[in-house]
């Protein structure tokens, strides 16, 4: 089928298939999945500027489906997500401004690429270490499997900070936390997302668990809730620049809707540490994609 906006010929079933695969991953891990869908679209012949915008558009729709499913399962903390959006918006702008400043140095792609790989490998290694440690705690100490987190240092200290105004997040099981901590985490993830040019799901999910002490299932659902707004904003700005082929996004979304539902439902069958252990592979995949790009072996 020919898509008049991008001018490329792509099998619509392939697009729906990509959406389905990324949808399962997104629903299960709470990530947008742009680092997987993007290269696949590029390999199908979609021009690079349309890859980013169209992927964001499909991500918006997929996140709506997955977040609604997670909400039905009681996994979305809308208050937390709403507060974090405030920080995320400013963070994204700060990250984008830093890129503009670095562009003057001439080697911005290398700087971003190396930072990206470093952060992703760090997240992957830490999440794998912590989740294995948590699983060991469950086996040896008979800790509640849903609550087990092998690393609580930062979350405990941040909960102890009393900088008013304080908010309670009952859905996440937090009696009182400074609003500045919540906005600060949003700012940090937004900054990294803006600087690295990604949706930021695979940065935000572990930060919610380890820095804020949010239970894994709620971190996944809340992350998807936030992606609706960040990806929706991105869709609008990219569409205004003419970088969105909405027909492609709609087709990808038909597959993603089912995948996201299945992925979100599957989280009920896995305990938090197991979800985190499986999740630890994702940032590594992202790092490999960037490494291939830096070495000139892949287009995305």
């Amino acid at each position, binding site marked *: 089928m020919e*898509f*008049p*906006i991008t001018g490329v010929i792509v099998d*619509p079933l392939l697009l*729906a298939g990509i959406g389905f695969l990324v949808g399962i991953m997104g629903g299960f891990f709470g990530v947008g999945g742009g680092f997987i869908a993007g290269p696949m679209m590029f390999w199908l012949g979609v021009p690079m500027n349309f890859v980013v915008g169209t992927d964001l*558009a*499909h991500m*918006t*729709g*997929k996140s*709506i*489906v997955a977040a*609604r*499913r997670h909400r*039905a399962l009681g996994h979305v903390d809308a208050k937390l997500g709403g507060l974090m959006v405030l920080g995320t918006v400013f963070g994204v702008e700060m990250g984008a401004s830093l890129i503009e400043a670095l562009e003057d140095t001439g080697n911005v792609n290398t700087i971003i690429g190396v930072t990206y790989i470093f952060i992703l490998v760090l997240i992957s290694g830490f999440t794998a270490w912590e989740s294995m440690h948590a699983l060991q705690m469950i086996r040896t100490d008979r800790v509640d499997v849903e609550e087990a987190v092998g690393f609580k240092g930062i979350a405990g200290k941040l909960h102890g900070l009393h900088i008013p105004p304080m908010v309670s997040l009952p859905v996440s099981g937090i009696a009182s936390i400074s609003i500045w901590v919540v906005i600060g985490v949003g700012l940090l993830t937004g900054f990294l997302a803006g600087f690295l040019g990604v949706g930021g799901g695979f940065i935000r999910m572990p930060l919610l668990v380890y820095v804020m002490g949010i239970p894994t299932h709620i971190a996944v659902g809340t992350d998807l809730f936030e992606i609706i707004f960040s990806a*929706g904003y991105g*869709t*609008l700005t990219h*569409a*205004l620049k*003419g970088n*969105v082929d*909405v*027909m492609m*996004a*709609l*087709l990808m*979304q*038909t*597959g993603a*809707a*089912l995948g996201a*539902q*299945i992925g979100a*439902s599957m989280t009920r*069958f896995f305990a938090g540490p197991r979800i985190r252990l499986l999740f630890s592979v994702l940032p590594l995949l992202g790092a490999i994609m960037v490494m291939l790009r830096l070495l000139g072996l892949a287009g995305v």
Partner: protein
Amino acid sequence: MVKRRKIKKMIRTVIIELLIYFTVVVAYFYFVLRYLRDWLGTLYANDLVMYAVISLGLIVAQAIFLEIVTSFLLSYTNFDMVET
């Protein structure tokens, strides 16, 4: 043994769901999306602001519609009841 039987049941449920959903999506594609293609192409060429707003609106509307369809299918095929 019981666990294996439950996994088999889950896989069978997913396959049934995929077949039903595939039929629904193909019908949707031929009866709805095909007619939108040329109109969206013209809109993209003539009015980018309107195109951006309508794009976001279509994405949100389709997401809500598909969520209702897939939720119904999941409950119809008892996927939600399957436990491993």
